[in-house]
């Protein structure tokens, strides 16, 4: 289980970033005090437009960056105080994380397996299962650089799961994937959830949130506007579908500002 309390992340902007973002503010509140809980056996989705703070939130969860304020607990372990312990329990997947193209899938999974402290036997067992599941078997000794994009993505997932994490954090899982690979990835997320894992994803695609997630939090400008099951969101907003509900909240928050 993952629990997030009052999470805030403020970036100090460089001059270049200020110019790029066309802003005079020196600080950017990328995440502005959010709370949520994600439970085992569920897929929790952060749904929001670009720049809402989804990636920043997930990076905080993955202990890649430190929040400015707030707390994160994984099964009651404080993530901010026990980074290394937490990293053994979680995995973080994003488009930006890549594997060295020079090495083979076999070498790569062995390498990361040992970095997670697994024994050779443990790695071997896990590797067989994962490579079979993602159909990487026959490419084990091919350099990653020579694999197709879809195959690389599958390998990334396989490698990140080598230590059998309890909590899977996935930033924009279907981004940049062809429909076939995208489907196999989402199918796998459901598989993981059914195994009792806690899955947290971010997305800006309505249909992904609607079909995949058990719980959805709509995040706009670093704040969670609503959080709950699809039904709960539709009921509270009085809308027919998620897209209408989202735009209702979006217009509200933008209108309130101006």
């Amino acid at each position: 289980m993952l629990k997030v309390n009052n999470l805030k992340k403020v970036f100090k902007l460089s001059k270049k970033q200020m110019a790029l973002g066309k802003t005079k503010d020196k600080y950017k509140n990328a995440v502005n005090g959010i709370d949520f809980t994600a439970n085992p056996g569920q897929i929790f989705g952060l749904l929001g437009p670009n720049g809402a703070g989804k990636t920043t939130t997930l990076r905080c969860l993955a202990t890649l960056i430190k929040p400015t304020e707030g707390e994160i607990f994984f099964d009651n372990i404080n993530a901010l105080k026990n980074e290394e312990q937490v990293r053994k329990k979680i995995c973080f997947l994003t488009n930006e994380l890549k594997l060295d193209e020079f090495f083979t899938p076999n070498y790569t999974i062995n390498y990361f397996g040992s970095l997670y402290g697994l024994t050779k036997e443990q790695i071997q067992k896990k590797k067989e299962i994962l490579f079979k599941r993602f159909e990487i078997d026959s490419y084990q000794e091919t350099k990653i650089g020579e694999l197709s994009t879809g195959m690389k993505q599958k390998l990334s997932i396989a490698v990140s799961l080598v230590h059998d994490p309890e909590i899977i954090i996935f930033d924009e899982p279907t981004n940049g994937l062809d429909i076939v690979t995208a489907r196999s990835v989402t199918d796998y997320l459901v598989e993981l959830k059914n195994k009792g894992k806690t899955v947290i994803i971010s997305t800006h695609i309505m249909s992904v949130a609607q079909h995949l997630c058990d719980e959805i939090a709509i995040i706009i400008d670093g704040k969670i506007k609503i959080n709950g099951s699809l039904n709960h969101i539709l009921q509270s907003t009085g809308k027919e579908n998620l897209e209408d509900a989202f735009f209702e909240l979006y217009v509200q928050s933008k209108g309130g500002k101006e």
Partner: protein
Amino acid sequence: MKNFMLILKKELARVFTDKKLVFNSFILPPLILVVIYTIMGSQIDKLEKDIDTHVSDVYIQQAPQEFLDLIVDAENVNTFTEVKDDEIQNIKDDIYEGETDLLIIFDDDLISKIADYKTAEDVPEVKTYYNPSEEYSQKAYNQFISYLDDYEDTIIAKRVEKPKYLNAFDINRTNEDKHIVNEKKAAGKGLGMLLPMLLMIFLFSSAMGVGIDMIAGEKERGTMATLLITPVKRYHIALGKTVSLGIISIVASICSFAGLLVTLKTAPQVLTGSSNIDMGVMQYGFTELFMLLTVMISVVCIFVGLICLISIFAKTVKEAGTMISPVYMVVMIAAFLNMFSKATPQLWQFAVPVYGTTIAIKSIFSFEMTWIKWLVTCGSSLIIAAILILVIAKMFNSEKIMYNK
């Protein structure tokens, strides 16, 4: 510790199993060294043979008959003895251009002046003009200086009544521009002096290529972040990367060193300027070679530290390249600063990073290196490298630097 070893092993595997990298980092630099210097060496040899058979043009003004008799059998020389005063400037210009080899001007009435002089200021004079940056000119000068010595001996032998002075005339006592040097060509002859600098450049550039890719390249390609989410401690990652780059660079410097040994064997004349003087590798003993290797390795540690530190700040390989360029320049300047200096360096100068190493290498080549100097050179380099590594480990903990997309 186990994780550190894992990272180290992976980084080494990355480089040593990549044929292209192996060639570029380990084989190419010593190859270039050997090829350049072997070609230069054979050029020098050719030049020497050519010089031996070259027929020199020598202009002599107011030569006494006895001297002319002495040089009548001189080999490979064209002498011109009818030189008018208004031709002197033209001849000097020709010497500067390398068209003519030597000009000798005897005092007029040399014989009677020799007979009459009383004080040292009155000693008659013979002036010679040549161009030391021209091999032909140098050869003619050497040849005629010995004729002049012979001539002086015969006069002294005849004039035993003035034995207390034991010289009949001075050569170039008041003549201050006997060297008609073409500076550019003189510099060209100093290629042997380039060797320490070339070594430094090779050491830096081979560490640079691999180092930039290992850190900035991994950040750019997103493989660094993959490593950062593992439970490995950040300073283990930092150490794993810097130490492996250190090992790779030390292997590279051993390769360059081997290239150097081959160079010394195939082309000893590039160091000494002449193949007649046999000062090849045989003369450098174990001590010199050991000092050379250790000095090279210790400066490589500084290079590795600098390169890693800069690569951490960069987001991309390109940016790292841009950021390292000025450092590369400074390193080159430090390496070149001492190139033309003939002065014996002070002990503290050996402690100056990079610059100290260059003078150390120079000192080793000229057998002037002591263990104290060696200790100062290596010690200062290693201390600076250690400080750099500490800073690097700190930087790896900074999210702003490691994750600044």
